[in-house]
Protein backbone atom coordinates (compact mmCIF):
# COMPACT_ATOMS: atom_id res chain seq x y z
CA UNK A 1 0.00 0.00 0.00
CA UNK A 2 1.27 3.43 -0.92
CA UNK A 3 0.34 6.91 0.26
CA UNK A 4 0.92 10.07 -1.78
CA UNK A 5 1.51 13.28 0.15
CA UNK A 6 0.69 16.20 -2.12
CA UNK A 7 3.67 18.51 -2.50
CA UNK A 8 2.87 22.21 -2.79
CA UNK A 9 3.91 25.56 -1.35
CA UNK A 10 2.83 24.81 2.22
CA UNK A 11 4.58 23.77 5.41
CA UNK A 12 4.40 20.63 7.57
CA UNK A 13 4.84 18.20 4.65
CA UNK A 14 8.01 16.86 6.26
CA UNK A 15 6.21 16.29 9.56
CA UNK A 16 3.47 14.29 7.86
CA UNK A 17 6.08 12.17 6.09
CA UNK A 18 7.90 11.51 9.38
CA UNK A 19 4.61 10.53 11.06
CA UNK A 20 3.92 7.96 8.34
CA UNK A 21 7.50 6.66 8.70
CA UNK A 22 6.85 6.12 12.41
CA UNK A 23 3.82 4.00 11.39
CA UNK A 24 5.98 2.12 8.83
CA UNK A 25 3.61 3.30 6.09
CA UNK A 26 5.31 3.76 2.71
CA UNK A 27 4.76 7.28 1.35
CA UNK A 28 5.93 9.60 -1.39
CA UNK A 29 5.87 13.39 -1.45
CA UNK A 30 4.86 14.36 -4.97
CA UNK A 31 3.09 16.87 -7.21
CA UNK A 32 2.96 14.42 -10.13
CA UNK A 33 -0.74 13.88 -11.02
CA UNK A 34 -0.07 10.31 -12.21
CA UNK A 35 1.58 9.31 -8.92
CA UNK A 36 -1.19 10.99 -6.93
CA UNK A 37 -3.93 9.24 -8.93
CA UNK A 38 -2.42 5.78 -8.56
CA UNK A 39 -1.74 6.01 -4.80
CA UNK A 40 -3.94 3.95 -2.45
CA UNK A 41 -4.32 6.93 -0.10
CA UNK A 42 -3.70 10.64 -0.56
CA UNK A 43 -2.82 13.15 2.13
CA UNK A 44 -3.27 16.84 1.40
CA UNK A 45 -1.28 18.59 4.15
CA UNK A 46 -0.72 22.26 4.72
CA UNK A 47 0.29 25.10 6.94
CA UNK A 48 0.21 28.40 5.14
CA UNK A 49 -1.96 31.01 3.48
CA UNK A 50 -5.10 30.06 1.53
CA UNK A 51 -4.98 32.31 -1.55
CA UNK A 52 -1.33 31.67 -2.45
CA UNK A 53 -1.82 27.94 -1.88
CA UNK A 54 -4.89 27.82 -4.17
CA UNK A 55 -3.07 29.83 -6.82
CA UNK A 56 -0.18 27.37 -6.72
CA UNK A 57 -2.55 24.40 -7.02
CA UNK A 58 -4.46 25.95 -9.95
CA UNK A 59 -1.28 26.82 -11.84
CA UNK A 60 -0.33 23.14 -11.75
CA UNK A 61 -3.92 21.89 -12.24
CA UNK A 62 -3.64 20.04 -8.96
CA UNK A 63 -7.05 21.48 -8.00
CA UNK A 64 -8.72 19.36 -10.70
CA UNK A 65 -6.63 16.34 -9.75
CA UNK A 66 -7.64 16.51 -6.09
CA UNK A 67 -11.35 16.95 -6.86
CA UNK A 68 -11.33 13.97 -9.20
CA UNK A 69 -9.69 11.51 -6.78
CA UNK A 70 -11.67 8.39 -5.86
CA UNK A 71 -9.41 6.81 -3.20
CA UNK A 72 -9.51 8.05 0.44
CA UNK A 73 -8.12 11.60 0.70
CA UNK A 74 -7.22 13.29 4.00
CA UNK A 75 -6.82 17.07 4.15
CA UNK A 76 -4.92 18.39 7.15
CA UNK A 77 -5.28 21.94 8.53
CA UNK A 78 -4.98 24.30 5.53
CA UNK A 79 -5.49 21.23 3.31
CA UNK A 80 -8.90 20.67 4.91
CA UNK A 81 -9.79 24.36 4.62
CA UNK A 82 -8.92 24.36 0.92
CA UNK A 83 -11.38 21.48 0.43
CA UNK A 84 -14.24 23.79 1.56
CA UNK A 85 -16.13 26.17 -0.74
CA UNK A 86 -14.57 29.50 0.21
CA UNK A 87 -12.07 30.95 2.68
CA UNK A 88 -12.17 34.47 4.08
CA UNK A 89 -8.37 34.29 4.14
CA UNK A 90 -7.50 36.28 1.02
CA UNK A 91 -11.18 35.99 -0.13
CA UNK A 92 -10.30 32.69 -1.77
CA UNK A 93 -12.52 30.38 -3.81
CA UNK A 94 -11.51 26.88 -2.74
CA UNK A 95 -12.06 23.36 -4.07
CA UNK A 96 -15.71 23.07 -3.00
CA UNK A 97 -15.59 19.45 -1.87
CA UNK A 98 -17.07 20.18 1.58
CA UNK A 99 -20.15 22.38 1.62
CA UNK A 100 -18.99 24.89 4.23
CA UNK A 101 -17.09 28.15 4.44
CA UNK A 102 -13.88 29.07 6.24
CA UNK A 103 -14.00 32.13 8.49
CA UNK A 104 -11.66 33.95 10.87
CA UNK A 105 -11.99 33.55 14.63
CA UNK A 106 -13.54 36.53 16.42
CA UNK A 107 -11.31 39.42 17.47
CA UNK A 108 -11.88 38.74 21.15
CA UNK A 109 -10.15 35.34 20.96
CA UNK A 110 -6.42 34.78 21.03
CA UNK A 111 -5.40 33.80 17.53
CA UNK A 112 -3.97 31.59 16.33
CA UNK A 113 -5.65 28.98 18.51
CA UNK A 114 -2.49 27.16 19.56
CA UNK A 115 -2.60 23.98 21.61
CA UNK A 116 -4.54 20.85 22.49
CA UNK A 117 -8.31 20.81 22.23
CA UNK A 118 -10.96 18.10 22.29
CA UNK A 119 -12.76 16.72 19.21
CA UNK A 120 -16.35 15.59 19.81
CA UNK A 121 -16.98 12.78 17.39
CA UNK A 122 -20.02 12.82 15.12
CA UNK A 123 -18.93 10.18 12.60
CA UNK A 124 -16.96 7.05 13.52
CA UNK A 125 -14.66 6.35 10.57
CA UNK A 126 -11.60 8.40 11.59
CA UNK A 127 -12.28 8.08 15.31
CA UNK A 128 -12.40 4.30 15.81
CA UNK A 129 -10.67 3.13 18.97
CA UNK A 130 -11.19 6.19 21.17
CA UNK A 131 -13.12 5.51 24.38
CA UNK A 132 -13.37 9.22 25.17
CA UNK A 133 -13.33 12.25 22.89
CA UNK A 134 -9.61 12.65 22.12
CA UNK A 135 -7.39 15.72 22.34
CA UNK A 136 -5.48 16.89 19.28
CA UNK A 137 -2.99 19.67 18.55
CA UNK A 138 -4.43 22.71 16.75
CA UNK A 139 -2.70 25.74 15.21
CA UNK A 140 -5.06 27.94 13.20
CA UNK A 141 -6.65 31.37 12.88
CA UNK A 142 -9.46 30.33 10.52
CA UNK A 143 -12.10 27.65 11.01
CA UNK A 144 -14.64 25.73 8.95
CA UNK A 145 -18.26 26.14 10.01
CA UNK A 146 -20.41 23.24 11.17
CA UNK A 147 -22.41 21.57 8.35
CA UNK A 148 -24.00 18.24 7.38
CA UNK A 149 -20.55 16.89 6.53
CA UNK A 150 -19.08 17.65 9.98
CA UNK A 151 -17.40 14.52 11.41
CA UNK A 152 -16.26 16.12 14.69
CA UNK A 153 -16.72 19.47 16.41
CA UNK A 154 -14.44 21.46 18.71
CA UNK A 155 -15.13 24.49 20.88
CA UNK A 156 -13.07 27.66 20.66
CA UNK A 157 -15.31 30.65 21.26
CA UNK A 158 -17.82 28.79 19.12
CA UNK A 159 -18.32 25.28 17.80
CA UNK A 160 -16.48 24.59 14.54
CA UNK A 161 -15.76 21.59 12.30
CA UNK A 162 -12.59 19.93 13.54
CA UNK A 163 -13.23 17.06 11.11
CA UNK A 164 -15.24 16.80 7.90
CA UNK A 165 -16.07 13.89 5.65
CA UNK A 166 -17.94 13.32 2.41
CA UNK A 167 -17.71 10.09 0.42
CA UNK A 168 -13.97 9.37 0.00
CA UNK A 169 -12.89 12.82 1.23
CA UNK A 170 -11.85 13.46 4.85
CA UNK A 171 -10.44 16.55 6.49
CA UNK A 172 -9.11 17.42 9.95
CA UNK A 173 -8.37 20.90 11.24
CA UNK A 174 -5.88 19.62 13.81
CA UNK A 175 -2.48 18.08 13.20
CA UNK A 176 -2.60 14.30 13.66
CA UNK A 177 1.10 14.17 12.76
CA UNK A 178 1.83 16.20 15.92
CA UNK A 179 -0.90 14.84 18.22
CA UNK A 180 0.97 12.09 20.08
CA UNK A 181 -0.84 8.72 20.38
CA UNK A 182 -4.26 10.15 19.48
CA UNK A 183 -2.88 11.43 16.20
CA UNK A 184 -1.21 8.11 15.41
CA UNK A 185 -4.50 6.26 15.99
CA UNK A 186 -6.33 8.66 13.68
CA UNK A 187 -3.72 8.29 10.93
CA UNK A 188 -3.88 4.50 11.29
CA UNK A 189 -7.67 4.67 10.99
CA UNK A 190 -7.30 6.66 7.78
CA UNK A 191 -4.71 4.28 6.36
CA UNK A 192 -7.08 1.35 7.06
CA UNK A 193 -10.02 2.90 5.17
Amino acid at each position, binding site marked *: MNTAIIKYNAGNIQSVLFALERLNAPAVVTDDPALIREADKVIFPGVGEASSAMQYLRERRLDEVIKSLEQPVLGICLGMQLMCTHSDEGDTTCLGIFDTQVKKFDQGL*KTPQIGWNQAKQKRPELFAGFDEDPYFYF*VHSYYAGVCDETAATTEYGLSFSSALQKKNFYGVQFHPE*KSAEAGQILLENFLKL
Partner: protein
Amino acid sequence: MLTKRIIPCLDIKDGRTVKGTNFVQLKDAGDPIELAAMYASQGADELVFLDITATHERRKTLADLVNKVARQINIPFTVGGGISTVEDVRILLQNGADKISVNTAAVKNPALINELAKEFGSQCVVLAIDTKLEDDGEWYVYLTGGRTKTNIRCVDWARKAVDLGAGEILLTSMNHDGTKSGFALSITKRLSTSLPVPVIASGGGGTMQHFVDVFKEASADAALAASIFHFKEISIPDLKNYLSDQDISIRK
Protein backbone atom coordinates in the same frame (compact mmCIF):
# COMPACT_ATOMS: atom_id res chain seq x y z
CA MET B 1 -11.97 23.61 25.45
CA LEU B 2 -8.41 24.65 24.71
CA THR B 3 -6.12 23.24 27.40
CA LYS B 4 -3.20 24.85 29.22
CA ARG B 5 0.14 23.55 27.96
CA ILE B 6 3.06 22.12 29.92
CA ILE B 7 6.32 22.63 28.03
CA PRO B 8 9.64 21.14 29.09
CA CYS B 9 12.54 23.22 27.81
CA LEU B 10 15.83 21.67 26.76
CA ASP B 11 18.78 24.04 26.72
CA ILE B 12 21.26 22.61 24.24
CA LYS B 13 25.01 23.12 24.34
CA ASP B 14 27.27 21.10 22.04
CA GLY B 15 24.50 18.58 21.46
CA ARG B 16 23.80 17.90 25.17
CA THR B 17 21.04 19.17 27.42
CA VAL B 18 22.33 21.55 30.09
CA LYS B 19 20.76 23.58 32.84
CA GLY B 20 22.07 26.55 34.82
CA THR B 21 20.80 28.95 37.45
CA ASN B 22 20.13 32.56 36.48
CA PHE B 23 21.63 31.81 33.04
CA VAL B 24 25.03 30.63 34.42
CA GLN B 25 26.53 27.57 36.22
CA LEU B 26 25.70 24.96 33.58
CA LYS B 27 25.15 21.33 34.56
CA ASP B 28 24.79 18.37 32.18
CA ALA B 29 21.20 17.13 32.05
CA GLY B 30 21.34 14.35 29.47
CA ASP B 31 20.81 13.38 25.83
CA PRO B 32 18.21 15.68 24.22
CA ILE B 33 16.59 13.02 22.02
CA GLU B 34 16.15 10.59 24.92
CA LEU B 35 14.77 13.34 27.13
CA ALA B 36 12.44 14.59 24.39
CA ALA B 37 11.07 11.09 23.75
CA MET B 38 10.50 10.54 27.46
CA TYR B 39 8.66 13.85 27.88
CA ALA B 40 6.47 13.17 24.84
CA SER B 41 5.51 9.75 26.22
CA GLN B 42 4.76 11.27 29.64
CA GLY B 43 2.27 13.75 28.20
CA ALA B 44 4.28 16.92 27.61
CA ASP B 45 2.20 19.15 25.34
CA GLU B 46 5.11 20.68 23.43
CA LEU B 47 8.88 20.95 23.68
CA VAL B 48 11.26 23.87 23.34
CA PHE B 49 14.90 23.46 22.34
CA LEU B 50 17.13 26.47 22.94
CA ASP B 51 20.64 26.30 21.53
CA ILE B 52 22.33 28.49 24.10
CA THR B 53 25.70 28.33 22.38
CA ALA B 54 24.40 29.27 18.96
CA THR B 55 25.28 32.94 18.99
CA HIS B 56 28.95 32.33 19.54
CA GLU B 57 29.69 28.91 18.16
CA ARG B 58 28.91 26.84 15.09
CA ARG B 59 25.39 25.54 14.67
CA LYS B 60 25.15 23.09 11.79
CA THR B 61 24.69 20.45 14.48
CA LEU B 62 21.44 22.15 15.49
CA ALA B 63 19.80 21.36 12.13
CA ASP B 64 20.87 17.72 12.49
CA LEU B 65 19.44 17.57 15.99
CA VAL B 66 16.16 19.12 14.79
CA ASN B 67 15.92 16.50 12.07
CA LYS B 68 16.42 13.65 14.54
CA VAL B 69 13.85 15.09 16.93
CA ALA B 70 11.30 15.58 14.13
CA ARG B 71 11.67 11.97 13.02
CA GLN B 72 11.22 10.52 16.49
CA ILE B 73 8.95 12.87 18.42
CA ASN B 74 5.18 13.04 17.82
CA ILE B 75 4.42 16.35 19.56
CA PRO B 76 5.16 19.90 18.38
CA PHE B 77 8.46 21.58 19.15
CA THR B 78 10.01 25.02 18.94
CA VAL B 79 13.67 25.71 18.23
CA GLY B 80 15.51 28.85 19.24
CA GLY B 81 18.94 30.25 19.88
CA GLY B 82 20.93 32.59 17.67
CA ILE B 83 18.36 32.74 14.87
CA SER B 84 18.87 35.95 12.88
CA THR B 85 17.81 35.42 9.26
CA VAL B 86 14.98 34.06 7.13
CA GLU B 87 17.42 31.45 5.86
CA ASP B 88 18.23 30.24 9.41
CA VAL B 89 14.52 29.68 9.91
CA ARG B 90 13.96 27.97 6.58
CA ILE B 91 16.62 25.36 7.40
CA LEU B 92 15.12 24.60 10.82
CA LEU B 93 11.55 24.37 9.49
CA GLN B 94 12.65 22.19 6.58
CA ASN B 95 14.29 19.85 9.05
CA GLY B 96 10.97 19.50 10.87
CA ALA B 97 10.75 22.21 13.54
CA ASP B 98 7.15 23.38 14.02
CA LYS B 99 8.03 26.83 15.32
CA ILE B 100 11.12 28.91 15.83
CA SER B 101 11.84 31.50 18.47
CA VAL B 102 13.73 34.72 17.96
CA ASN B 103 15.15 36.95 20.65
CA THR B 104 18.25 39.16 20.34
CA ALA B 105 18.19 39.43 16.54
CA ALA B 106 14.56 40.59 16.60
CA VAL B 107 15.33 43.40 19.04
CA LYS B 108 18.23 44.55 16.89
CA ASN B 109 16.19 44.21 13.70
CA PRO B 110 12.43 44.22 14.43
CA ALA B 111 11.64 43.90 10.70
CA LEU B 112 12.88 40.31 10.99
CA ILE B 113 9.63 39.38 12.78
CA ASN B 114 7.60 40.78 9.92
CA GLU B 115 9.73 39.01 7.30
CA LEU B 116 9.38 35.68 9.10
CA ALA B 117 5.62 36.07 9.60
CA LYS B 118 5.15 36.88 5.90
CA GLU B 119 7.36 34.05 4.72
CA PHE B 120 6.26 31.26 7.10
CA GLY B 121 3.16 32.55 8.94
CA SER B 122 2.74 34.01 12.41
CA GLN B 123 1.87 30.59 13.81
CA CYS B 124 5.51 29.52 13.69
CA VAL B 125 7.08 32.77 14.95
CA VAL B 126 7.60 32.79 18.71
CA LEU B 127 9.12 35.89 20.25
CA ALA B 128 11.30 35.02 23.24
CA ILE B 129 11.83 37.83 25.74
CA ASP B 130 14.32 37.66 28.60
CA THR B 131 13.21 40.29 31.06
CA LYS B 132 14.33 41.59 34.42
CA LEU B 133 12.60 43.71 37.04
CA GLU B 134 14.82 46.70 37.85
CA ASP B 135 14.94 48.92 40.92
CA ASP B 136 12.69 51.49 39.21
CA GLY B 137 9.87 48.92 39.29
CA GLU B 138 9.85 48.37 35.53
CA TRP B 139 10.57 45.21 33.53
CA TYR B 140 13.32 45.67 30.88
CA VAL B 141 14.39 43.52 27.93
CA TYR B 142 17.79 41.78 28.10
CA LEU B 143 19.72 40.38 25.15
CA THR B 144 22.32 37.72 24.35
CA GLY B 145 21.12 35.19 26.89
CA GLY B 146 20.66 37.75 29.64
CA ARG B 147 24.10 39.36 29.36
CA THR B 148 23.12 42.69 27.82
CA LYS B 149 20.64 45.17 29.29
CA THR B 150 18.51 47.39 27.08
CA ASN B 151 16.34 50.39 27.91
CA ILE B 152 13.35 48.79 26.19
CA ARG B 153 10.35 48.07 28.41
CA CYS B 154 9.13 44.48 28.18
CA VAL B 155 5.46 45.44 27.68
CA ASP B 156 6.31 47.86 24.86
CA TRP B 157 8.46 45.34 23.03
CA ALA B 158 5.92 42.53 23.34
CA ARG B 159 3.15 44.74 21.92
CA LYS B 160 5.33 45.91 19.04
CA ALA B 161 6.42 42.36 18.21
CA VAL B 162 2.81 41.15 18.10
CA ASP B 163 1.92 44.04 15.79
CA LEU B 164 4.83 42.96 13.56
CA GLY B 165 3.50 39.39 13.38
CA ALA B 166 4.80 37.35 16.34
CA GLY B 167 2.30 34.55 16.97
CA GLU B 168 3.30 33.72 20.53
CA ILE B 169 5.37 35.20 23.36
CA LEU B 170 7.82 33.14 25.43
CA LEU B 171 8.42 35.27 28.50
CA THR B 172 11.35 34.44 30.79
CA SER B 173 11.83 36.34 34.02
CA MET B 174 15.54 36.51 34.83
CA ASN B 175 14.68 37.40 38.42
CA HIS B 176 12.89 34.05 38.77
CA ASP B 177 14.75 31.72 36.38
CA GLY B 178 16.41 28.86 38.24
CA THR B 179 15.17 30.02 41.65
CA LYS B 180 12.21 27.60 41.97
CA SER B 181 10.39 30.36 43.84
CA GLY B 182 7.44 30.61 41.47
CA PHE B 183 6.76 32.27 38.13
CA ALA B 184 6.74 36.05 37.64
CA LEU B 185 2.99 36.46 38.00
CA SER B 186 2.65 40.23 37.56
CA ILE B 187 4.44 40.66 34.23
CA THR B 188 3.02 37.39 32.88
CA LYS B 189 -0.50 38.58 33.68
CA ARG B 190 0.12 41.99 32.13
CA LEU B 191 1.13 40.40 28.85
CA SER B 192 -1.31 37.48 28.75
CA THR B 193 -4.36 39.62 29.48
CA SER B 194 -3.44 42.47 27.11
CA LEU B 195 -2.03 40.68 24.06
CA PRO B 196 -4.08 38.86 21.39
CA VAL B 197 -1.60 35.96 21.23
CA PRO B 198 -0.72 33.12 23.66
CA VAL B 199 1.87 33.78 26.37
CA ILE B 200 4.21 31.06 27.63
CA ALA B 201 5.46 31.76 31.17
CA SER B 202 9.03 30.70 31.91
CA GLY B 203 11.38 30.90 34.87
CA GLY B 204 10.80 30.01 38.49
CA GLY B 205 8.51 26.99 38.42
CA GLY B 206 9.54 24.89 41.41
CA THR B 207 6.36 23.31 42.80
CA MET B 208 3.12 22.08 41.32
CA GLN B 209 1.30 24.94 43.06
CA HIS B 210 3.47 27.42 41.11
CA PHE B 211 1.92 26.09 37.91
CA VAL B 212 -1.57 26.46 39.35
CA ASP B 213 -0.73 30.06 40.25
CA VAL B 214 0.62 30.99 36.82
CA PHE B 215 -2.45 29.55 35.07
CA LYS B 216 -5.09 30.81 37.52
CA GLU B 217 -3.64 34.11 38.73
CA ALA B 218 -1.56 35.17 35.73
CA SER B 219 -3.76 33.65 32.95
CA ALA B 220 -0.73 32.15 31.21
CA ASP B 221 -1.59 30.00 28.20
CA ALA B 222 1.35 27.68 28.76
CA ALA B 223 4.10 27.18 31.31
CA LEU B 224 7.67 26.18 30.58
CA ALA B 225 10.23 24.66 32.91
CA ALA B 226 13.49 22.77 32.62
CA SER B 227 15.44 21.60 35.64
CA ILE B 228 12.48 20.38 37.71
CA PHE B 229 11.65 18.00 34.87
CA HIS B 230 15.24 17.09 33.92
CA PHE B 231 16.19 16.26 37.49
CA LYS B 232 12.86 14.45 38.12
CA GLU B 233 11.73 16.74 40.92
CA ILE B 234 8.26 16.94 39.39
CA SER B 235 6.89 14.36 36.95
CA ILE B 236 4.65 15.56 34.14
CA PRO B 237 1.86 13.00 34.85
CA ASP B 238 1.79 14.02 38.55
CA LEU B 239 1.74 17.70 37.57
CA LYS B 240 -1.11 17.20 35.12
CA ASN B 241 -3.16 15.26 37.66
CA TYR B 242 -2.58 18.00 40.21
CA LEU B 243 -3.64 20.75 37.77
CA SER B 244 -6.70 18.78 36.74
CA ASP B 245 -7.70 18.38 40.40
CA GLN B 246 -7.48 22.17 40.70
CA ASP B 247 -10.00 22.55 37.84
CA ILE B 248 -7.42 23.65 35.30
CA SER B 249 -8.19 22.46 31.78
CA ILE B 250 -5.40 20.08 30.83
CA ARG B 251 -4.83 17.26 28.33
CA LYS B 252 -4.48 13.92 30.11
